[in-house]
């Protein structure tokens, strides 16, 4: 009997040691090609840096981290298969969602069905209907689209704006964003003088810009995707949008990405646009500065977004949240981690974050910044403060809006 007990204890010790040797597997898909590929690659690099940093410190719970990421090509149809493979073949312990809403939405029923923790990654309201209690989205806009347009329209109201033009891509993110902007504009009593959608991937905006100019709006709120954003900025620079326009921009995806900023250069002057992080004094903190310094070296070598302001700090922060939760609970169990994430304020390099009941930031924070003083096409100038002056929200404000737009352009 004694020998049998001893044998069992030895076996248990051996198997414990074997588990301790096994890495903690973290899995995700990330758009590395397709529409969101540019941002996705930069975000992926940040997560890889987090994994390397943790492993350099000895891992989590005495186990190294193993990071498994597949390219979903920004194609929602591939995502269910990839996440099933991550869970059933690769046997990952923790899941991170891909960057973007369309590619995240197909995973939600899967994680709900299996009752798993999923860290969200800049998606929008994917949990609004499903209400999975183990979903935590690291996106600064929180639930609903009100946080996006608020600072832009507040600034517009202070300028005495009475009319607004809205142009939006006929695509998921842009439509959600403009829905929020419309609601705020309506609440502020602004008159809609132009409100049209355009087909996604449009390249010629001359007729739309002419129509907007003819409507003589005070504000122009644009909800567009990267290629369209670049085309709109070019069209506005070529044709002009009219002297009545006080502010233009708002929800233009892509104007946060270094390659587009570099390509457009001084054409960006005067545009006001949403962002997640800009190098202004109200957003500066040593951790982000140190991270971006290391990131820019790696980004250069790996030929991804050299600035990395929009997504990389937030992706690194996803890793930091997992690290904090796993270390504090000494567990990788979804239920335990989710309970911790719900009740605890998470300390990350992008700020302290609390999640609301649907797993979104309880205090959204979307800075609207005005491009100013951009000269030439040197990407390094965007690292300086004062090139993207935050005009709202008040807590982050670093300067007043320069208006009208024609004045700000110069």
């Amino acid at each position: 009997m004694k020998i049998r007990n001893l044998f069992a204890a030895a076996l248990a010790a051996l198997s414990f040691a074997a588990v301790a040797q096994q890495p903690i597997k973290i899995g995700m898909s990330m758009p590395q090609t397709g529409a969101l590929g540019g941002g996705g690659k930069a975000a992926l690099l940040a997560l890889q840096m987090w994994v390397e940093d943790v492993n350099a410190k000895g891992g989590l719970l005495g186990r190294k981290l193993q990071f498994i990421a597949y390219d979903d090509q920004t194609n929602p149809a591939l995502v269910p298969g990839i996440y099933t493979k991550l869970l059933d073949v690769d046997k990952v312990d923790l899941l991170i969602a891909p960057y973007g809403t369309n590619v995240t939405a197909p995973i939600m029923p899967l994680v709900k069905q299996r009752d798993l923790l999923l860290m969200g990654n800049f998606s929008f309201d994917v949990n609004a209907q499903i209400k999975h209690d183990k979903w935590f989205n690291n996106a600064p806009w929180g639930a609903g689209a009100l946080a996006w347009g608020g600072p832009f329209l507040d600034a517009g109201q202070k300028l005495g704006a009475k009319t607004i033009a809205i142009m939006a891509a006929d695509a998921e993110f842009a439509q959600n964003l403009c829905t929020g902007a419309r609601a705020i504009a309506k609440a502020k009593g602004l008159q809609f003088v132009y409100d049209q959608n355009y087909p996604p991937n449009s390249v010629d905006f001359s007729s739309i810009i002419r129509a907007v100019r003819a409507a003589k709006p005070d504000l122009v709120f644009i909800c567009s995707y990267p290629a369209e954003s670049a085309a709109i900025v070019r069209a506005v620079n070529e044709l002009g949008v009219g002297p009545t326009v006080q502010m233009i921009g708002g929800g233009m995806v892509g104007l946060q990405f270094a390659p587009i900023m570099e390509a457009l250069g001084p054409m960006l002057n005067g545009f006001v646009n949403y962002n997640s992080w800009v190098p202004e004094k109200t957003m500066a903190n040593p951790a982000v500065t140190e991270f971006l310094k290391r990131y820019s070296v790696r980004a250069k070598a790996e030929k991804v977004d050299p600035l990395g302001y929009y997504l990389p700090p937030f992706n690194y922060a996803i890793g930091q949240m997992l690290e904090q939760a796993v270390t504090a609970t000494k567990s990788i169990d979804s239920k335990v981690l989710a309970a911790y994430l719900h009740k605890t304020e998470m300390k990350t390099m992008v700020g302290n974050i609390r999640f609301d009941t649907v797993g979104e930031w309880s205090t959204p924070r979307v800075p609207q910044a005005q491009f100013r003083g951009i000269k030439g096409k040197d990407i390094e100038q965007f690292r300086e403060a004062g090139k993207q002056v935050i005009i709202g929200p008040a807590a982050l404000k670093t300067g007043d809006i320069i208006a009208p737009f024609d004045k700000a352009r110069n």
Partner: protein
Amino acid sequence: MKRFLLGSSGVLALAASMPLVFQNEYFFFAGYVVLQLIVLATAWNILGGYAGYVNFGSGAFFAVGAYTAVALYKAFALPLGLQILAGAAAAGLLGFGVGMLTLRLRGIFFSIATIAVAIVLETVVLNWHYVGGAKGLPTLRPTETPFFASHTVYLFFVMAVIAVIAVGAARYVETSWIGRGLRAIRDNEGAAECSGVPTLKLKLGAATLSGALMGAAGAPYAQYLSFIEPTSAFSLNHAVNALAMPIIGGMGHWIGPVIGAVLLGTVQQVVTVTISSEINVLVVGVLLVVFVVAAPEGILGLFRRFFPRKK
């Protein structure tokens, strides 16, 4: 015919018994995609392979099936079987409309018109807010599926049934007078008309059947994905795959699209989780070019060349 029925029953029995062998749900996700490709490729081949009318708008037929199913589920909570029938009917109707185009358009002009149809329909869906419009619509799967281990396994079996029906229909078309008529249209439509082949009737029938099968393939799409949005539903990838697979497998025989879909679909699934990049689209493109240049009759043609039938 008996052999085909026996084979089909065997395939379905195999699909039904898969859960006993594979516990891993990933297999069923990947298998579903391959089966869906078989349906799309087979359906495309009925109009494109037999009649020679190249359809670039497969994504539209697929999406019409998917969105019809979603709309009916949202309105009346119809079960999946009825959703598939409705999706097939709607896409069949669209196929009939596209068939009418053949009255005026042939060759490349017909192909361009099918792309136009896809773009018009995508724009309609983008602005149809009841089914989510541009924002997309999440669709929750049932938590329990009677008789099946999971809803994924159930969807895999449903797609296997649709695939068997599609291949059966294609085989019937090919081996009957309809197939002979369609081949006559492909070779010389004017001569076929003069010889008494009811060309319009046959083209309309082929386009309707082809569309209906693509719609049936699209109907369970929203349940498979748990989400639907226009960009992926109308994706040009559907059209590229539907066209490439029969060309690679061989367009002259009903088994050609099946071979092409199994081969290419499996390669795509493997590439997605190994090389992990857009290379899987490149794989399709490169194989397409290689086969068009080196083996215009596809794998079947190669097989026949190296293993000719003894006379």
